[in-house]
């Protein structure tokens, strides 16, 4: 079967005598990879880079005639990030946390991330306008504000991190569950999640709300995760998802403390298997030295107390908080090994691969360069067993993995690494090779008819590590794992058209003057600021 490409799109047919032919016989051809959640740009990522010179020294990329020099490992420099994704056959990457105040910085870094299309999700779960409007029950006004912020920050989806907890962290507190009120705002996380879910629907946004649950990374938090999913159950219509629970591995801990911590993956998977309104991504742990960074300030502070490592914690004015702590996942630690097991258990117990995305929440649970390794764990019981032999005894005893004999096939891998991710993101032109799709193609040098991924998992890993070809917008950009043509990617953002735009009055400007360090006039970033702007026009219902 041939795939014809013209002007950056996949078409029915081209003139074969004139066309450039890429011979992919005996190889796997997939759409370009899509990553729904990886922290690759922004103020937080950059602070992480500054914090970790020892992370860079062990992984240096020398410049070539085509590519720039850079450093890795867990927080690669912008250009290196783009190159590495492209070498693995990825063409679309989503940066999931952008404080609206830091949008300018984030887009500057995204512009410097070549080879991939990208977008960013503004953090709105603790934005004061959202909290105030939802407290007063003004969902439509809230929607107008969210529409404005999408345009102002050039964002793509509503990101909610520890709803309410980050505002409480401004006062040194946190929220304990979805019904714990936020100090001074008299609103609960449940109301924030439900409110923003309604806003998301009113605005017809392509992606659902993207939620990092309360109590993340604490034993017993699977109940909070289930509560979070249940609280928007009645807002679902048909089989459309309305909530995406991100890096769900971190939200699936059972037990009352770290000693009794075990896997809650079974309960979460059971719920997800019976409900269609929720999608997840894995946040799979890799045993390595990495850097954790989230907008969840209280969680990061807890992590600092746990490890005693160097740390950064920051309060982003009226919008969110953030924290960074270097972290090493150890095989012999029962907790870390259980976390490793939870990620895979979730992926294997959730029956429908369209509900799940493969991520490491880069760099929180491991760098994205470990994706080929996760692919082998998903595809081969033997690979899982081999790693199981090396992990903590307690974690091995409690792990559900030995009882699961499911192994992913190449089609399922294609779903969890690109097709499903694109569908969940609402990117219609990505994640498939149908006519009209963007000509983003990845070719991997492994023959699915000859290689049994369950036994020859090493060959599979090798193939996914270095794509034989990556084609971006109809151009061959990577050949045999080497960049052959550096290209800029597009930046997607939502141009949401509301019939009742946000009222820009003196009251609003006064608020910016009083509470923000940036005035209203300087807050929004113009389209001309983006290197390759690709707005997606959306007509809202309000």
């Amino acid at each position, binding site marked *: 079967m041939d795939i014809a490409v013209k002007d950056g799109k996949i078409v029915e047919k081209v003139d074969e005598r004139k066309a450039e032919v890429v011979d992919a016989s005996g190889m796997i051809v997939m759409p370009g990879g899509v990553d729904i959640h990886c922290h690759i740009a922004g103020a937080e990522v950059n602070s992480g880079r500054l*914090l970790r*010179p*020892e*992370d860079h*020294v062990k992984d240096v990329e020398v410049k070539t005639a085509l590519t720039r020099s850079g450093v890795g490992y867990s927080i690669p420099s912008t250009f290196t990030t783009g190159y590495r994704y492209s070498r693995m056959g990825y063409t679309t990457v989503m940066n999931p946390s952008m404080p609206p105040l830091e949008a300018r910085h984030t887009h500057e870094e995204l512009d410097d991330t070549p080879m991939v299309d990208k977008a960013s999700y503004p953090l709105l779960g603790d934005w004061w306008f959202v909290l105030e409007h939802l407290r007063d029950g003004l969902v439509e006004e809230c929607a107008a504000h969210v529409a404005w912020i999408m345009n102002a920050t050039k964002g793509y989806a509503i990101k909610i991190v520890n709803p309410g907890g980050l505002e409480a962290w401004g006062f040194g507190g946190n929220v304990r569950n979805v019904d714990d009120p936020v100090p001074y705002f008299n609103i609960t996380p449940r109301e924030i999640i439900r409110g923003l879910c309604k806003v998301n629907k009113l605005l017809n946004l392509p992606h659902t709300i993207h939620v990092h649950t309360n109590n993340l990374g604490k034993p017993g938090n699977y109940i909070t995760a289930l509560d979070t999913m249940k609280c928007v159950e009645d807002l679902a219509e048909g089989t459309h998802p309305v909530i995406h629970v991100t890096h769900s591995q971190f939200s699936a801990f059972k037990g009352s403390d770290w000693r009794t911590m075990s896997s809650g993956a079974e309960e979460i998977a059971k719920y997800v298997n019976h409900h269609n309104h929720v999608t997840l991504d894995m946040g799979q742990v890799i045993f390595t030295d990495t850097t954790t960074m989230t907008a969840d300030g209280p969680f990061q502070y807890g992590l600092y107390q746990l490890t005693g*490592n*160097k740390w950064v914690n920051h309060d982003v004015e009226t919008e969110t908080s953030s924290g960074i702590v270097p972290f090493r996942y150890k095989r012999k630690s029962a907790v870390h090994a259980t976390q490793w097991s939870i990620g895979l258990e979730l992926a294997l117990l959730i029956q429908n691969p369209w509900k799940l995305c493969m991520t490491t929440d880069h760099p929180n649970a491991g760098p994205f360069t470990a994706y080929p390794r996760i692919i082998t764990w998903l595809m081969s019981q033997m690979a899982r067993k081999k790693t199981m032999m090396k992990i903590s005894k307690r974690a091995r005893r409690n792990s559900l993995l030995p009882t699961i004999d499911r192994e992913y096939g190449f089609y399922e891998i294609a779903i969890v690494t690109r097709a499903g991710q694109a569908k969940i993101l609402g990117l219609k032109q990505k994640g498939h090779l149908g006519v009209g799709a963007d000509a983003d193609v990845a070719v991997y040098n492994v023959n699915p008819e000859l290689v049994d991924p369950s036994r020859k998992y090493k060959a599979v890993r090798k193939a996914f590590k270095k794509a034989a070809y990556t084609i971006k917008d109809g151009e061959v950009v990577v050949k045999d794992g080497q960049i052959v043509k550096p290209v800029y990617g597009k930046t997607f953002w939502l141009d949401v058209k509301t019939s009742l735009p946000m009222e820009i009055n003196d009251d609003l400007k006064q608020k910016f003057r009083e509470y923000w360090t940036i005035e209203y006039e300087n807050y929004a970033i113009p389209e001309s600021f983006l290197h390759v702007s690709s707005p997606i026009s959306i007509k809202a219902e309000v």
Partner: protein
Amino acid sequence: MITLYPKRLFKTPVDAECISPDFFAEKSAKEIAALQIWEGNRRREVGDLFKIKHETGSQSDEVTVRICGDVSKVRKIGAKMSMGNIIVEGDVGMHLGEKMNGGVITVTGNADSWAGSMMKKGTIEIKGDAGDYIGASYRGSTQGMNGGKIVIHGNAGYEVGCFMRKGLIKVYGDIGKFAGIHMRNGTIFIQGNSEGRAGAQMIDGKIVVCGYVPSILPTFTIDDIRQKVKVNGEKLEGPFYRFIGDLADEGKGKLFVSKNRNLHLSSYEEYL
């Protein structure tokens, strides 16, 4: 024995990770001359910068590399070496014996900063002075010297033994500020004077100062007066004040300071 003579005075730093017995073993002079080396941002070969003399006289198992001349701009000599000897007759540049895993390095002149950083095994002996960050960790890392021995006959600079985890550093001269900062374990012995702030943020380990100390950090508490102190099996006559710290980091490191050379510290005795 393989002897290297610098052909000229280097003006830009030379990155010479390959000057180590591990790389030179079982190689002829020609092969050694072809090894890759960086001078600034230029790729060179060892033979471009050094004259090489290969003597196969003695049949010992140990590979000995001798460097005669000024190599104070040459960095990373003996990095990651695991066996053999390096003798530097003259001054040597930064990162000497970085991540060293065995063998012996002897320097007759001075050594620059970062000598023996992150080393695990082996011995470094410096007859002259040494720079800063001796036996330290890489910037930002918490993995400092993890074994082996560094002996400095002259003075040493600042932050000696930063994040040190194991091993011994002996300084027969004076030492700069922040000796043993962030120290996790291991021993630092200072025959001369300290510029102060020794043991800041240390968690465990032992620092012995036989000379003058301007003051002790306020986060250290006096514990005892000891007549003798053991350093690497060797007994030193005191008396010594023994301080415990750094309490700001809940540390239990021991800081021994000579009583006779530090009469201004006698006010601590009333807290005993």
